[in-house]
């Protein structure tokens, strides 16, 4: 029997939340006096949140053994791509008025924009091949291709750090937020290294085993 798909519905509700809030705040004139930048930055942050959430699925499964989170990864990844696309569109359209010469110059010369563009272009093939058709068709290569999300996650953090005023390596300036998100992404990636993964699932099994033994003893 199929359970009520509450987790699936929850993911979709959360997925539309940032856009809904943006529209609400736009209508309420609540996007600061520099709304274009506010829209741009909020969409970028939303993309990062969903990318981190998608990257968290495997570690959450490893840590908890909770299987029903696994099918939610695709939607989270697509929401990340959705917000990254809106973020890029806002940059190109609202911010730079689709001035192609200017955009091309920025995209090729300004470090944080190079990083952002690179991360976004890594996400494009992943979104395109997210359909069941490609998963079946590409077999092993699908998994290989979708490992691009790991470098994308790291490059996004570089993009975030470089867009702020400060110096991450000297821990000076406006770097706290990118630092925390960077640590989270790195942590989520480390948990994928086979040795780390094995250790974590071993840990889980021994904890669960102990608990099982405990409940058994209490009986």
């Amino acid at each position, binding site marked *: 029997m199929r359970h009520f798909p509450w987790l699936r519905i929850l993911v979709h509700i959360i997925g539309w939340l940032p856009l809904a809030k943006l529209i609400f705040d736009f209508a309420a004139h609540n996007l600061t006096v520099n709304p274009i930048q506010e829209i741009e930055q909020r969409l970028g942050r939303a993309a990062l949140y969903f990318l981190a959430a998608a990257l968290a699925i495997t570690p959450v499964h490893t840590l908890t053994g909770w299987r029903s989170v696994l099918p939610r990864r695709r939607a989270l990844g697509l929401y990340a791509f959705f917000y990254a696309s809106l973020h890029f569109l806002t940059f190109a359209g609202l911010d730079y008025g689709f001035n192609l010469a200017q955009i091309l110059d920025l995209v090729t010369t300004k470090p944080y924009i190079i990083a952002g563009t690179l991360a976004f272009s890594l996400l494009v093939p992943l979104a395109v091949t997210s359909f069941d058709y490609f998963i079946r068709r590409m077999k092993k290569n699908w998994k290989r291709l979708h490992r691009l999300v790991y470098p994308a996650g790291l490059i996004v953090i570089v993009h975030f750090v470089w867009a702020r005023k400060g110096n991450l390596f000297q821990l*000076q300036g406006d770097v706290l937020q990118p630092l925390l998100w960077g640590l989270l992404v790195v942590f989520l990636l480390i948990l994928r290294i086979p040795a780390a993964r094995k250790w974590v699932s071993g840990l889980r099994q021994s904890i669960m085993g102990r608990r099982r033994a405990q409940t058994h003893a209490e009986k």
Partner: protein
Amino acid sequence: MEQKLKHVDIPSSEITPESLYLSRRDWLKVMGIVSAGALLAACAPKLSGITATGSGSSPETQGAPVPDNAHGQTADEFGNPLNTFDEIANYNNYYEFSTAKDAVASLAADFKSTPWAVEVDGLVQNPRTWSLDELLRFEQKERVYRLRCVEAWSMVIPWTGFQLSDLLAEAAPMASAKYVEFTTLMDEEQMPGVGSRFYPWPYTEGLRLDEAMHRLTILATGLYGKPLPNQDGAPLRLVVPWKYGFKSIKAIVRIRLTEERPQTFWNTIAPDEYGFYSNVNPEVDHPRWSQATERRIGELSRRDTLMFNGYGGEVAGLYAGMDLSINY
């Protein structure tokens, strides 16, 4: 000495009402045409009226000289309209309170800006502490200045204030004085951001003495004919209109004349990104982003950034013979 200080008392009836200062932009309307504007911008090669040539001395980059007293003026010397009081008072880079520009106003609401004292010392003949009332006796003028943030946004602001040169003349710098160092109040109880270990508090800034003595360099005490709002640096802040906004240090408690170039806040954090001079210069990019264009708050399309923020006619001479890509 006291008689020299002219007390200017502007009757409130003379202060231009805000409704005349500005035609308030209707955001709904403006934002309704955002997409249309974006499409238009795709067709038009240049929407901004002013073209920067980068030399700072060509006629297009200079408006009329900045008037000594812009009382009641509704635009800058290029004809750019003023930003609204609400815009100026709700979008503040003031990391002592918050790194979120729209959060500063409420966090600074209870800031105590009176009583206030400013110490003027270092290499001066007459070191002393000035109260705010004493400073308000210097001839207060209204100056409409463009403020260009290093983050590539800008505003046009009607400041009230007095020339720093008036105060420095009273202090009488010694011949050995070459620089002026400014320090912001550091009060952890009132300023929640000061607790952050990521910054070298207190905020300090510096100018070369000739920059400090320039007629355009003012200590602002108000805007729109009102006392300076807390979030804009009450009760006393520096305004140096041809430099990036972070040079215009807020809530000043100390002005010290020195022989050595002073350490400054952002320069300490990232010396290769924020130079001591930090003159607005569209040709010298910040290493990570472009300084060629800016967004004027309230406008949809970007405009070209002007050399020395459009004040080259009056200030370019200060940097004659200097390579501005090295002395950024």
